[in-house]
């Protein structure tokens, strides 16, 4: 892999940019691999990357039915934060956030991590108490967050309506090092680094069956033939239920649609991320100037990557109330992704009933922010066969044992 650098740009500028190489190779699948990851979203690619980087396992394939990053990783609103309440969540999301800080340098790929600051508005007294509690918990967990009053909110977000008639802003949970990153770049950067380590990223290859003997996975049936493997990692977000069915077990997961939309681009007007969970909407401004907007999920199972229209209306109603100046903005694009919701809204990074098969899923509406930490924990689980401290609490058996991580981590609106 040729490194990207200021010298590379200068060199290429002098020769009509003829020397840039492909960011990753597109090889034919081999007969078999030491490890296969299904799903080339951020979580799958990061899992492969840390398998190579942290454990030296590089005879690895990442198998993707569409194009890499074409699932939720390329469809999300890119909010990154780690201000969760429960210890296991704070640990893994803060690990991820911390890795994001230096990810561009680590991958030699600009993921445009922008720790611009993130506010979660409190608009009811119940929320005020809830967020104060979170701030105290975060201080104990070593996650840096603070409680700020309405005056400071207005300073940080001049376009906000502090005293709306229904839900005046009573303050906010503020994480100064929260923010956003470029979603595609996260997938592309990991893919390029994996490919450079000699891993195969195989796109346009759908897994259709899991072959096994005596409770151990032997390989995968795919649309490009059978591929053998010694270890299998399933990292397919909204399609986890389907892969689990192929492997012969059932998950506490339901697939529903979550939508987002962006406005026409306007001049810079908001340089933080604002989430308003009571009225159900959140917004940030992209580098191009578009207002990036998201809201809640539909309540019913859906695999169509298309959500219900009335949710858009509800989201926009909430945001116009919070930011009156956006009322005349035109919305340019809207899309949906299929998110994997668990019973306690926390993710699963776990062994499965099959000895050499591992699963990473359940990130639901909020897993972009977790990509580096989740990949780190999944690689450890796959390499050692046992979960490390980051993954230990996220076992799929917690639902049987009643050990929920009841966080609403991935809940309808809270990204």
């Amino acid at each position, binding site marked *: 892999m040729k490194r990207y650098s200021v010298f590379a740009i200068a060199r290429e500028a002098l020769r009509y940019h003829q020397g840039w190489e492909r960011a990753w190779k597109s090889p034919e699948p081999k007969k078999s691999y030491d490890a296969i990851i299904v799903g080339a979203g951020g979580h799958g690619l990061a899992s492969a990357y840390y398998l190579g980087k942290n454990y030296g396992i590089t005879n690895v394939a990442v198998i993707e039915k569409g194009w890499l990053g074409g699932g939720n990783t390329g469809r999300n609103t890119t909010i990154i934060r780690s201000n969760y309440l429960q210890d296991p969540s704070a640990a893994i999301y803060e690990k991820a956030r911390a890795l994001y800080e230096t990810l561009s340098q680590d991958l030699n790929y600009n993921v445009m991590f922008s720790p611009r600051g993130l506010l979660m508005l409190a608009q009811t007294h119940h929320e005020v108490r809830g967020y104060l509690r979170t701030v105290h918990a975060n201080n104990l967990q070593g996650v840096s967050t603070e409680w700020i009053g309405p005056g400071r909110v207005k300073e940080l977000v001049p376009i906000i309506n502090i005293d709306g008639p229904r839900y005046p802003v009573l303050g906010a949970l503020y994480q100064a090092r929260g923010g956003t990153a470029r979603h595609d770049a996260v997938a592309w950067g990991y893919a390029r680094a994996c490919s450079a380590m000699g891993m195969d990223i195989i796109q346009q290859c759908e897994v259709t069956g899991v072959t096994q003997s005596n409770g151990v996975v032997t390989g995968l049936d795919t649309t490009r033939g059978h591929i053998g493997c010694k270890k299998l990692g399933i990292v397919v977000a909204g399609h986890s239920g389907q892969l689990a069915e192929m492997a012969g077990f059932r998950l*506490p997961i339901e697939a529903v649609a979550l939508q987002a939309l962006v406005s026409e681009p306007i001049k810079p007007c908001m340089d933080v991320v604002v989430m308003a969970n009571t009225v159900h909407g959140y917004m940030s401004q992209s580098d191009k100037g578009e207002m990036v907007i998201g809201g809640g999920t539909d309540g019913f199972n859906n695999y169509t990557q298309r959500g219900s229209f009335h949710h858009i209306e509800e989201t926009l109603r909430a945001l116009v109330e919070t930011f009156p100046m956006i009322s005349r903005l035109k919305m340019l694009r809207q899309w949906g992704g299929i998110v994997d919701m668990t019973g306690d809204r926390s993710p699963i990074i776990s062994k499965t009933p099959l000895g050499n098969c591992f699963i990473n899923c359940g990130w639901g509406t909020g897993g972009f922010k977790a990509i580096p930490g989740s990949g780190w924990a999944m690689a450890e689980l796959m390499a050692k066969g046992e979960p490390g401290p980051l993954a230990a609490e996220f076992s799929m058996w917690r639902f049987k044992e009643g050990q929920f991580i009841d966080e609403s981590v991935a809940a309808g609106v809270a990204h």
Partner: protein
Amino acid sequence: MLILECPCCGVKAEETELSPGGEAHLKRFGPGSSDEEFEAYMFARKNPKGVHFERWRHAYGCGKWFLAARCTATLEVFGTYPAQTSEPPADIVAKIKAKRPDWKGYK
């Protein structure tokens, strides 16, 4: 837009009148049952990509619960039926089979 005909009052209700209630025909388990049974009842879900049976409530209409057969991959509705049934009725099953010949049937 999703439209379901409420079998209780006959109204063709659109989505905003309805609230979804999750997978239908779950077998209930209570105190005294095993951890596995309780987990299966509370959390394990079929979550199929394709034919699915669900509970719905005509929340902003007659207020009653009913069941619906729907395809989660295309959003096609096969039919609705009363909540007082323990498995999908034969006419609904026949209708689905006619439209989805490779559907494995309700299990």
